[in-house]
């Protein structure tokens, strides 16, 4: 390998330098961040409204100006020139600088919000204090570290969204999808929940308080959605609260399976989801960094499905912990709930093992059986051990470990902090239990596939290189095989970068969805039938 790569070493200076406009744009954007940084170090800005506005505008316009300069003078088409020459997008020095800064930011955000100026009793200081006026404008409450994060997150999706819209201005699928994530982030994740907070205590909620609820954030991505305090909040908030709780339950059990059946998991992962939204916009420059090896794929399958098991156990234990035992008080008791969970899991397991077994790899079957036995045994533990315990651990221990390991470290620190090193979908690929459940539906029960166009593939590898989920798309395309993979989020970039028009994301009949051809179209019919006959 070594001699091999050296000979390809770039002796010259390929186009990787920034134009003067781009340099100024970068300085503008960084100056916006600089204002925030000064606030972190408790520089007291006399006029918070003015300085916060300046900061957010500088960040946004820095990004937008940079993008305008990069794309406006070029014809519509694929814009990947120099991606592997630029330090930031090829794991160079700037990538590490960006990765470490982001990671540091997440560590502070999750574990040391007091350094950002969070004050629990009294006025916020620092950068959180800077955001107070905006927060009060929206929800009437002072800002928290999550409000700061949510605002910056939305700004990133909007500004980098505009960049993405220019970059792919020739591609309507990409444009519509990007408008969609920009809309859902701004409206559903940011503005609506803040405005909903104004209703708290109001008589339409019977004086109750709704928990902060991003309506599109479905369990298990929103792993805390069914925790005790939230259920209380929902149930104390009259008909609206009850409707929201029902909506949260229907979301995972009814709405998502139907939409995934019809359109594949892309309807969520690359059209609606906030994590996906950030990955597709701010993370777009890093999609080529995902690992395409079969080894990475194997690790992905085990890790992401283990997270599903973990979140299922954790949620079951948490709900179990606040349910009662007396049927006369409330129909749902610890026992009925556990029996319900067991029945549901058994039905899913049985359906897969009876009808869909041939679509699972050997290790997937072993994994499914193993995990199923463990969950059922743990549920059984309740009935044999008498009172109080389920799953050996206290529900609170499970909840806290999940929240720390998966909710903070995996999705934030690694998932987003390491965009410039591991690619933009690390969390979605290896960690997100929602993506795993939707992927499971997509693989086994969906009309979605990426169709390979007969014999046109030239094995160039653009599709695999730019697949953010690390799918070796070419491996299928060059065999003339459709791509039906649980991890595919349907971003459509493989199809966009293909120079020969080989790939098309589409929803079609289940019949013939997974077709494995040994010989591609183009040869005479006899040879095709002969070789395809196994």
């Amino acid at each position, binding site marked *: 390998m070594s001699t091999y790569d050296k000979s390809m070493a770039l002796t010259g200076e390929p186009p990787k330098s920034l134009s003067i406009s781009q340099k100024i744009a970068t300085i503008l954007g960084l100056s916006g961040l600089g204002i925030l940084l000064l606030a972190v170090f408790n520089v007291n800005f006399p006029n918070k409204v003015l300085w916060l506005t300046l900061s957010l505008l500088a960040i946004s316009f820095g990004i937008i100006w940079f993008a305008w300069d990069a794309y406006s003078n070029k014809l519509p088409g694929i814009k990947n020139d120099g991606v592997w020459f630029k330090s930031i997008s090829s794991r160079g020095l700037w990538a590490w600088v960006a990765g470490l800064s982001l990671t540091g930011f997440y560590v502070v955000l999750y574990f040391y919000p007091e350094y950002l100026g969070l004050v629990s009793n009294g006025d916020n200081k620092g950068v959180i204090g800077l955001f107070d006026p905006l927060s009060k404008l929206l929800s009437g409450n002072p800002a928290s570290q999550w409000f700061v994060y949510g605002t910056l997150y939305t700004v990133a999706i909007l500004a980098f969204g505009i960049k993405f819209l220019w970059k792919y201005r020739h591609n309507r699928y990409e444009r519509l999808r990007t408008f969609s994530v920009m809309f859902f982030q701004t409206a559903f994740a940011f503005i609506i929940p803040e405005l909903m907070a104004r209703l708290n205590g109001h008589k339409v909620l019977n004086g109750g308080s709704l928990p902060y609820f991003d309506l599109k954030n479905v369990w298990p991505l929103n792993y805390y959605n069914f925790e005790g305090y939230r259920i209380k909040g929902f149930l104390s908030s009259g008909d609206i609260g009850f409707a929201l709780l029902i909506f949260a339950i229907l979301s995972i059990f009814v709405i998502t399976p139907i939409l995934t059946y019809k359109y594949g998991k892309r309807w969520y992962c690359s059209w609606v989801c906030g994590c996906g939204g950030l990955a597709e916009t701010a993370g777009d420059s890093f999609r080529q960094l995902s690992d395409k090896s079969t080894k990475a794929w194997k690790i992905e399958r085990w890790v992401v499905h283990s997270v599903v098991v973990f979140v299922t156990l954790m949620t079951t234990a948490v709900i179990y912990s606040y349910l009662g035992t007396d049927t006369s008080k409330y129909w749902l008791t610890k026992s009925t709930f556990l029996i319900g969970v067991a029945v549901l899991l058994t039905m899913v397991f049985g359906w897969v093992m009876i009808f869909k077994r041939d679509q699972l790899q050997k290790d997937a079957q072993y994994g499914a059986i193993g995990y199923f036995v463990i969950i059922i045994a743990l549920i059984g533990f309740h009935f044999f051990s008498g009172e109080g315990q389920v799953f050996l651990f206290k529900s609170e221990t499970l909840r806290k470990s999940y929240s720390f390991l998966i909710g903070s470290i995996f999705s934030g620190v690694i998932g987003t902090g390491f965009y410039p090193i591991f690619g933009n979908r690390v969390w979605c690929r290896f960690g997100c239990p929602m993506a795993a459940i939707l992927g499971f539906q997509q693989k086994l029960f969906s009309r979605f596939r990426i169709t390979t166009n007969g014999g046109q593939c030239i094995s160039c590898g653009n599709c695999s290189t730019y697949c953010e989920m690390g799918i070796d798309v070419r491996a299928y395309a060059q065999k003339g095989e459709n791509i039906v993979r649980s991890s595919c989020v349907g971003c459509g970039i493989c199809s966009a970068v293909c120079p020969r028009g080989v790939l098309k994301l589409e929803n079609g009949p289940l019949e013939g969805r997974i077709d494995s051809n040994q010989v591609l179209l183009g*040869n005479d019919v006899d040879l095709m039938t002969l070789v395809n006959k196994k």
Partner: protein
Amino acid sequence: MEHIVIIGNGIAGVTAARHIRKLSDKKITIVSAESKYFFSRTALMYVYMGHMKFEHTQPYENHFWQKNRIELVEGRVSHVNTEQKAIQIDGAPDLNYDKLIIATGSKPNKFGWPGQDLNGVQGLYSKQDLELLENNAPNNKVCKHAVIVGGGLIGIELAEMLRTRDIPVTFLVRETSFWNGVLPNGESQMINEHIQEHHIDLRLGASLKEIKPDENGKVKSVTIAESGEEIECNLVGLTAGVAPNIDFLKDSGIELGRGVKVNRQLETNIKDIYAIGDCAEQHVAIGNRRPIEAVWYTGRMMGEALAQTICENPMEYNPGNWFNSAKFLDIEYQTYGWVFSERSKKETESHFHWRHPKEKICITIAFHKDSETFLGINTFGIRLRHEVFDRWLNEKRTMGFVIEHLADANFDPEFYKSFESEIISKYNKDYGKSITPKKKNLKRIFQIS
């Protein structure tokens, strides 16, 4: 155990090896002077452009070869001894074979131009050519100006590559319009415009007279034959087509024409020696195809067919309907069936042409003048479904049918604007018809009842 030796690890040789492995336990060895592992030649341009790293052009992971018991030998085959069934390799020990497959691909054409071997003059075909280009044209300081000679697919790719590094490019095309030996006029004209849009100095009707050196034996300028104009440059790209890479077989006794002569079973005149891919030349051309087909997928198909023959299931190379695709800068091109240019089409071949009033999108459909049988289609900026057109060609559909069902064949990404109604109304106007378009139908597309 029978030993199959394959010379060349391009798409043809590697496909043959993979299919032989699928069908048998024979010992397989691939010899290559170009690279240890198979890579996709068509993707070399993207490495120079920074879209991919070289390793991304390799379709199989490095452990694939050992796992499938395909031995890889690095070295250049210098001689084939057909008597003793042995090959001599520069850089590796000799090998004995039971069956030999020649899959050595092509090399860039040189037509004896003065100065064609100067430093700074090169083709673009192999991995080594790419490395050379990285030396000759790393940036626009070392390479202040480049001249490309030969208006074909590789020429326009090379122009695109150099432009990504802001190197000024003059593109000499001998024909009066880009690739108009293959493309009908309307399309060729549109590509001319697109080339100029990309700030490439396109010179039509201009051929190379000579390449002049500077005092160090490096290229200094080229002279155009027609105008006598001299253009200073630091790089000359020779992209006037390719020819089979078979010089090492000259005294082997294997029958050669321009390529290695083979029959439909891909056998040469010598028993147990076969040739596939770009270097194979059919005794008699198949259909409208050329005797030597230097196309990615034909190499693959020959490999598939030959693997059957070698594994005791004799089979002819029997390509189906012609198809191909390419990308001209930002414009994708696909073709199914035969659409000939004005220069080479028969009198019975009629063309229907539609071009978008503003964007660089157009189609040409060829049909038989009298019977109105559909013959082929070219599209630029519109993707088409291979299976649908393959079926229509097999079913010998009429022009009316194709026009009516055009929506079924569209393969553009979802939500793309489609142009079927514009295309059909132009057709109706041109030919006095009143065809109404049928809506896209999944059942027809996927052939389910």
